[in-house]
């Protein structure tokens, strides 16, 4: 048997999950209380898993680096969560959500996992409503929906522009109920620094108490990693400052294969960079593309005048504007998938049509939507012959109701009023589709070690559709893992508590402590951020929105170089036995410096363009799709799963061939 057994159940795709659930081993309720599970990370995936596993009766130990589970970065998700409820009656179905997700992912995801995701999606909405999540409703009291990029139906549920927050607070409340009952032992301000394996199985972790600096041993019968993505490898991203890949990378080094690292999503609608001091980038929800129209000046001289501040966007006549997404993709227009929208923005800006001083921004304009909504409102309110001002006033009120918090956020950052002048946006690193390789059970290549949510690779292929991250995190945590993990733990009912005073724990703890001591005593000359920023620049310039062989080879060499300098020159002030944010960052950046090189290597090997991975060597040369990304299904319809062998350059590639039995592989066209 190959090491990469995806363990997808037999049978028709519609029945796989049901049949699987009917046949797996179960742990009886009396035995569950003798089984411990560690969950690292408490965002939507980890939080929902921890709560559900505790409800089932397992003893859960949960870990978060923040001071509360409620602060995990899922909280920042704005736009919404997809579910195939078909409440709108617009032809949605489980199959259509499945199809859209596979197509949107450019046919690089595992069919059976995606179908299961679509299948449980509507349970998620029911569950969240039962928890008291205040989703938006219409006047009849029923749930409202909006639409997102890459699809032709309205299936996105939302809570203002704070859907992630509300869903996470739902999980958090479910966790709190279990914490109060003693079924979840919550470790806030703790960071997992390595996994402990005993007889080949994951049996515990080594964690650092971020307040006291104490190194702690925690054991369990299974370990679940739910620590999110690795977008901060770019230094600048829409991730939180603390978002990191350390847990995922540490398990990779202990035997978990890392899949498709080059599949990274560059989100099209973020607030552009303003200077070198920039610490992070802020996303403006994709939901804005429902109503906003994206454009740049049609003439170069106008673009130049705008860049130099001589011309205002509102002064430009309609015919002098290039609504390039509507022009290039008439069927989907401003709602093309994220990868397509991002590349199109880069293409215009590279050609000189950018609209801010750096030349790296395009407009997202709400004037048409304000006018449209204003006219509808005037009609509803019975105002005949409304003035232009009245229409604008009424329209702005509707736009405020829909996106008020986003507009406020934009105004605070940029100091411009987006109701009156178009927003400026530019693509930024947002989400990582790649991650730890898992089988159908969400288990990694290490027995007893699971990986869920953004941290794994399975559901989004080469590009994730909007509002699908929240869906996947909650599907994994509420409805998938609680079943699959039981099948594994059924063999552990007689194991008893795993002791932590063993040589396996001794060894890993020593590795962890040695590394911390190294950082504290290194006495280098440069800060951690200095190296992180350099890594980020290489990643953005050479492994960013558009990649080629030469650049990727250079990137690998440069990242290796930065890594070597880092270990010689990094400086970490303070001591190990106290709260020390610089020490925390040093460990995380050390891991990014390895991950970044594997990322570039993966991008180099994948000589095709698909989803978020665009190779300049692989584009359509003629026909209707001229200039668009060219996928190569004959040679690259596989998942690259990398095995750690020391240096990232020496990682060994394993392939999981992707089979498409229920969807025909097609050129992805949004024209």
């Amino acid at each position, binding site marked *: 048997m190959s090491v990469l057994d995806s363990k997808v159940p037999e049978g028709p795709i519609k029945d796989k999950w049901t049949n699987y659930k009917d046949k797996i081993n179960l742990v009886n309720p009396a035995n569950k209380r003798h089984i411990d599970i560690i969950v690292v990370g408490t965002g939507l995936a980890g939080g929902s898993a921890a709560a559900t596993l505790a409800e089932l009766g397992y003893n859960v130990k949960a870990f978060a680096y923040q001071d509360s589970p409620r602060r995990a970065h899922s*909280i920042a998700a704005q736009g919404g969560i997809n579910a195939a409820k078909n409440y709108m009656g617009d032809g949605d179905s489980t199959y259509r959500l499945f199809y859209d997700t596979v197509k949107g992912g450019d046919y690089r995801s595992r069919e059976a996992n995606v179908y299961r995701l679509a299948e449980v999606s509507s349970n998620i909405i029911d569950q969240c409503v039962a928890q008291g999540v205040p989703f938006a409703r219409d006047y009849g009291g029923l749930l409202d929906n909006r639409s997102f990029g890459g699809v032709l139906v309205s299936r996105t549920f939302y809570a203002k522009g704070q859907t992630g927050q509300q869903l996470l607070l739902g999980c958090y409340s479910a966790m709190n*109920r279990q914490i*109060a009952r003693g079924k979840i032992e919550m470790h806030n301000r703790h960071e997992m620094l390595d996994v402990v394996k005993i007889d080949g199985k994951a049996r515990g972790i080594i964690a650092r108490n971020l307040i006291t600096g104490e190194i702690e041993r925690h054991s369990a019968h299974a370990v679940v990693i739910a620590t999110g993505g690795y977008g901060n490898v770019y230094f600048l991203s829409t991730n939180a400052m603390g978002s990191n890949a350390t847990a995922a990378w540490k398990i990779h080094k202990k035997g978990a294969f890392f899949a498709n690292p080059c599949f990274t999503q560059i989100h099209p609608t973020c607030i552009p960079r303003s200077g070198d001091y920039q610490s992070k980038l802020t996303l403006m929800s994709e939901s804005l593309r429902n109503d906003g129209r994206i454009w740049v000046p049609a003439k170069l001289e106008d673009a130049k005048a705008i860049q130099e501040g001589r011309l205002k966007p509102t002064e430009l006549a309609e015919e002098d504007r290039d609504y390039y997404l509507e022009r290039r993709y008439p069927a989907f227009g401003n709602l093309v998938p994220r990868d397509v929208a991002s590349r199109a923005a880069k293409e215009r800006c590279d050609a000189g049509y950018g609209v801010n001083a750096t030349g790296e921004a395009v407009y997202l304009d709400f004037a048409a939507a304000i006018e449209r909504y204003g006219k509808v409102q005037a009609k509803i309110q019975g105002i005949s012959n409304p003035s232009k001002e009245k229409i604008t006033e009424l329209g702005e009120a509707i736009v405020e109701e829909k996106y008020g918090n986003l507009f406020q956020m934009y105004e605070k950052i940029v100091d411009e009023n987006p109701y009156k002048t178009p927003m400026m946006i530019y693509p930024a690193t947002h989400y990582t589709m790649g991650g730890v390789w898992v089988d159908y059970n969400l288990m990694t290549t290490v027995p007893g070690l699971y990986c869920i949510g953004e941290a794994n690779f399975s559901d989004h292929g080469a590009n994730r559709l909007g509002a699908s991250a929240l869906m996947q995190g909650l599907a994994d945590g509420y409805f998938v893992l609680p079943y699959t993990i039981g099948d594994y733990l059924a063999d552990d009912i007689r194991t008893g508590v795993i002791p932590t005073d063993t040589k396996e724990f001794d060894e890993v703890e020593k590795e962890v402590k040695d590394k911390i001591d190294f950082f504290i005593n290194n006495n280098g000359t440069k800060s951690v951020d200095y190296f992180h920023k350099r890594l980020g620049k290489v990643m953005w310039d050479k492994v960013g929105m558009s990649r080629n062989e030469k650049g990727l080879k250079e990137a690998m060499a440069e990242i290796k170089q930065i890594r070597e300098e880092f270990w010689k020159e990094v400086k970490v002030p303070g001591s190990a036995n106290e709260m020390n944010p610089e020490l925390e960052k040093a460990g995380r950046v050390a891991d990014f410096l390895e991950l970044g090189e594997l990322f570039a290597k993966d991008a180099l090997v994948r000589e095709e363009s698909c989803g978020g991975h665009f190779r300049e060597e692989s584009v359509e040369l003629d026909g209707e799709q001229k200039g668009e990304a060219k996928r190569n299904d004959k040679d690259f319809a596989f998942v690259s799963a990398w095995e750690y062998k020391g240096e990232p350059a020496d990682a060994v590639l394993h392939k999981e061939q992707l089979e498409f039995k229920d969807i025909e592989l097609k050129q992805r066209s949004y024209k």
Partner: protein
Amino acid sequence: MNLTLKIWRQKGPQDKGKMVDYKVSDISEHMSFLEMMDVLNEQLVNSGEEPVAFDHDCREGICGMCSLHINGEAHGPDRGITTCQLHMRMFKDGDTITIEPWRAKAFPVIKDLVVDRSAFERIQQAGGYISVNTSGNTQDANSIPISKHAADEAMDAAACIGCGACVASCKNSSAMLFVGAKVSQFALLPQGQVEATDRVKNMVAQMDLEGFGNCTNTGACEVECPKGITLENIARMNRELFKASLIKF
């Protein structure tokens, strides 16, 4: 712009702590306040000093991790924002800025500007939830229509990010805006009715136990709340508490 910063430095919970002066120069008005703090910390690391510890994470105003009392105001001199959304254009060249941690008995200082807000966690654990297990068999989400007004109001209450600015701004260090917001979210929704009595009683009892003060209707919390949580939520909590006191079970 060039600025003088007066910052609270405290080694650990047992240390007495003191204000220390720092200078930063060439600060751009487009920087966020925390990016200015990054500049200071980079400067301190490079000169071999220990950087200032402060809580922060999402840097887009939603995680509730960042705190800071800036010139005597929670989240600084702007409205409807968290510290990470405060921009340096609110200050001018030559300003002296005072930066302190949240000050409240229930929020002890861990280090420098970092405080321990676990009291909020325990209040939520006392009843900030609806007791429903994950099953996949809950009723269809549309089976209970909820008036748009109630849903919107519940959402407004649920927007609380648990940052603690309300406590830090209150002369009594009261947590009533925080607790009132959670009680209100569930009180406004049909799903929250079953446990309404126990919820409000238990959460309020835990709040008192943690050492938060009482509300004397000054309204500073409402002014400083980055998410616009209104005093109405405190009133609703008091009504719920009164109602609960009349119910036997």
